[in-house]
């Protein structure tokens, strides 16, 4: 697979299918693992970093699950390519910085991504569409076992998997669920919900993980605690929290439909109208308007546009994607024009 092949592909997690996919965009499990013979990436010298990458590359070749995957060395990619992978949620923003001896393994379906030499030697993530953490866990668990067959991981029976940062020690697992909560935002109940989440030792982030702002009513919720509970317990804890948030979002959606239907329909249809006719549009405005259209589709107010088409627009209207599609560098102003054109094309054709 070549990097540009991804342009014509819809990531599994964008398909808009799976349980509760009207509110839960995607479910992701990430595992952090380290080789026991080497210093962690930030503490390894040049030679050691090279060796780490080589050892993991070798291991990959013997793993059946990774037969239809591609390893990209970050040193071989230009800035645009790296940004492109970040926008597709296939690697972190941090991974795109200082790229010596770093790599990412991506499977053809874009379900699995394994970062090499990020904060830990291995950061493997599995993303599913909809509310599906257990399925994601079962799949990544097998891949983790396959790696453990080839590599010797840093592990203590008392403390579990040993990671560069002690906040990941133990299971090395982070389960994250991406939620679309427009009704809780519009009814101004979101702060109450977020405060409750923080009290329960879960974290909320924006679309692109650590340090990013919530935009377009998207919130990513994940566990903070990695030690003292089994993976299944941690997932069950996240699940029960997410079930409550889904319930609250649904109640808010119903309340708006019954009390403010005209206002809601107006806002959704105006959002769609702007997207269908704008000639210049920023990425921030795009996300906000698409969020309303997505809500309209979920509530049956908009009937002829499905979740998948909207989800795809969220991804392909981002800066690196636009430039990849155009196959050239674009200034911010040029991007705003191209973005508006692309959205019109996609929304005006059936």
């Amino acid at each position, binding site marked *: 697979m070549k990097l540009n092949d991804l342009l014509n592909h819809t990531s599994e997690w964008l398909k808009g299918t799976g349980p509760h996919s009207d509110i839960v965009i995607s479910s992701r499990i990430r595992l952090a693992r380290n080789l026991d013979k080497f210093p962690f990436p930030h*503490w390894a010298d040049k030679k050691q970093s090279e060796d780490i990458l080589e050892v993991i590359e070798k291991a990959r070749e013997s793993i059946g699950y990774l037969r239809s995957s591609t390893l990209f060395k970050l040193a071989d990619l230009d800035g645009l390519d790296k940004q492109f992978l970040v926008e597709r949620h296939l690697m972190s923003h941090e991974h795109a910085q200082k790229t010596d001896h770093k790599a990412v393994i991506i499977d053809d379906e874009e379900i699995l991504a394994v970062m090499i030499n990020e904060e830990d030697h291995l950061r493997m993530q599995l993303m599913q569409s909809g509310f599906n953490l257990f399925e994601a866990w079962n799949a990544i668990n097998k891949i983790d076992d396959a790696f453990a067959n080839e590599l010797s991981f840093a592990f203590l029976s008392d403390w579990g998997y040993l990671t560069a940062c002690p906040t990941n020690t133990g299971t090395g697992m982070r389960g994250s669920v991406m939620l679309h909560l427009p009704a809780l935002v519009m009814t101004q109940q979101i702060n109450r919900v977020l405060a409750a989440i923080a009290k329960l030792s879960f974290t909320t982030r924006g679309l692109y993980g650590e340090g990013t702002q919530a935009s377009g009513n998207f919130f990513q919720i994940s566990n903070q*605690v990695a*030690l003292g509970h089994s993976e299944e317990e941690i997932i069950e804890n996240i699940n029960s929290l997410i079930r409550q948030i889904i319930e609250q979002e649904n109640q808010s959606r119903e309340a708006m439909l019954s009390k403010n239907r005209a206002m809601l329909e107006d806002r959704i249809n105006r959002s769609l109208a702007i997207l269908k006719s704008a000639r210049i549009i920023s990425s921030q405005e795009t996300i906000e308007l698409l969020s309303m259209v997505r809500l309209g589709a979920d509530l049956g107010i908009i009937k002829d546009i499905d979740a998948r088409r909207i989800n795809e627009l969220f991804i392909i209207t981002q800066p690196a994607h636009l430039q990849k599609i155009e196959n050239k560098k674009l200034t911010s102003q040029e991007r705003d024009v191209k973005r508006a054109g692309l959205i019109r094309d996609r929304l005006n054709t059936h």
Partner: protein
Amino acid sequence: MLCDVCGKNPATVHLTEIIDEQMNELHLCEECARQKSSQMESQFGLSDLLAGLADFEKPLSEQEAESAKCPNCQLTYAEFKKIGRLGCGQCYTAFKKYLGPLLKRIHGSNIHFGKSPLKASRVIKKKTDLQELRLKLQKAVGMEAFEEAARIRDQIKELERNKPVDS
């Protein structure tokens, strides 16, 4: 290193005395240091200074923690505190006594109950099973569920009887 005075217990207090420009190093166990302390107090009134030097209640002074170093990757505990990242897997063993309380503060627990790598899984499975049972036993005793506690105690005995656990 054993105590210079009694020669029996490990020396945990290290003193440098300078008398008439003669430097003397003394390595004492906790008990002998206490005696030395009261002796010196009556002689020189230096009790405050000594109390500061030998903080008997603290397991290890802050300074000792800071200078602790991982023998594998050479990262010191002071460096860890500065950068917030450990240097390698063996740092966890090197800094075990400081990291235990830290992990507990972060996660609310410092005992792993999750999966383990396949190769190590048999030995570790047993260890974690034992840990889990011991925790259950504590809980049962706490709730005065003595029948349940007895049943768990038997399970622990049974598990311990089968082949010794590697550590």
